[in-house]
């Protein structure tokens, strides 16, 4: 009888051990998956550019803009790009962070979500501000929601910088 109880107890302990191991495995994987799927924040790199049409035979860029050559190929009617400024902003998920790119344009980025396929959904908004009669006015020049692939770029273009140039912002998620 005692032997039978011992065997039952050992069997029960074995069952519980296996159950704990097998239930702990997916829990650990899920935690790891969650950590991978939903980091606390993303870092967005933005480069603000002055784009002009100078009738060149090929696109001309500042030397440090070479990594963006392919992305800037999608900008219509411009063949010369000069860097105005660049910035990196840390954006927590669910929050919006902004950075001034020029005296008139500011970029605001919201980290919306991280998808299961590794892409990051962001909302990017360029606010245009003007001051007249000591009154500051703003409007959303352009707003876009984009699923950003790793290493991918979001180009916001077409806004006026001055009479001869356009304003272009290139975003990427690091």
């Amino acid at each position, binding site marked *: 009888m005692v032997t*039978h109880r011992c*065997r*039952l107890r*050992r*069997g029960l302990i*074995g*069952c519980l051990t*296996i*159950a704990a191991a*097998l*239930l702990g*495995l*997916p829990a650990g*994987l*899920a935690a790891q*998956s969650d950590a991978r*799927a939903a980091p606390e924040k993303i870092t967005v790199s933005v480069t603000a550019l002055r784009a002009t049409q100078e009738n060149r035979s090929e696109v001309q860029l500042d030397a440090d803009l070479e990594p963006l050559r*392919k*992305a800037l190929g*999608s*900008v*219509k009617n411009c063949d010369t790009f000069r860097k105005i400024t660049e910035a990196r902003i840390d954006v927590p998920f669910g929050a919006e962070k902004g950075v001034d790119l020029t005296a008139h344009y500011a970029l605001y980025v919201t980290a919306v979500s991280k*998808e*299961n*396929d*590794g*892409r990051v*959904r962001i909302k990017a908004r360029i606010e*245009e501000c*003007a001051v007249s009669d000591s009154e500051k*006015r703003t*409007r*959303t*020049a*352009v*707003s*876009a*929601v*984009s*699923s*950003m*692939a790793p*290493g*991918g*770029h*979001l*180009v*916001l*273009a*077409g*806004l*006026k910088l001055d009479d001869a140039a356009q304003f272009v912002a290139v975003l990427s998620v690091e």
Partner: protein
Amino acid sequence: MFTSRKKRAVEQWFDRQEGAEREESACGFSGDAELAGHLADIRRLREGVKAVAVRQQIADDQFGAFMAGIHERLTEQAPRRAPGMWALASMAAVVLLVAISAVVVMMGKPAGVRAEQTEIEAYSTEIKGATVDAQSDKDTATVWVNVPAGDVW
């Protein structure tokens, strides 16, 4: 019908007779093959019942060997069995099934080819009269605002 009645009569006769007397009288049935066969069947049946009815007894001179056999079996180690093995195996199988299901559910869908593409899902502008175009290449998405000439704000 007639044959059946004869068979019953033979059965009653067989049970009434005893030993050698029965064997002598049975010779009278040898002419009828069917009744002789039936008689043989009855004899075999009755002998079988009689053998079962006899209780086996252990004589005094057999008792020592009988007890020795009992002692031998008592000291013999019982074959090792694992009474909880099937319960353990079935429980482990259930837990494994649940764990695999949980992993499949929690891991989500596998990444497809869309994972490498940067896409525009929505776009807008507040500039009056402006239109917005969007295009997605493999790793570049472009949103282009067409600001009307003479945009005064």
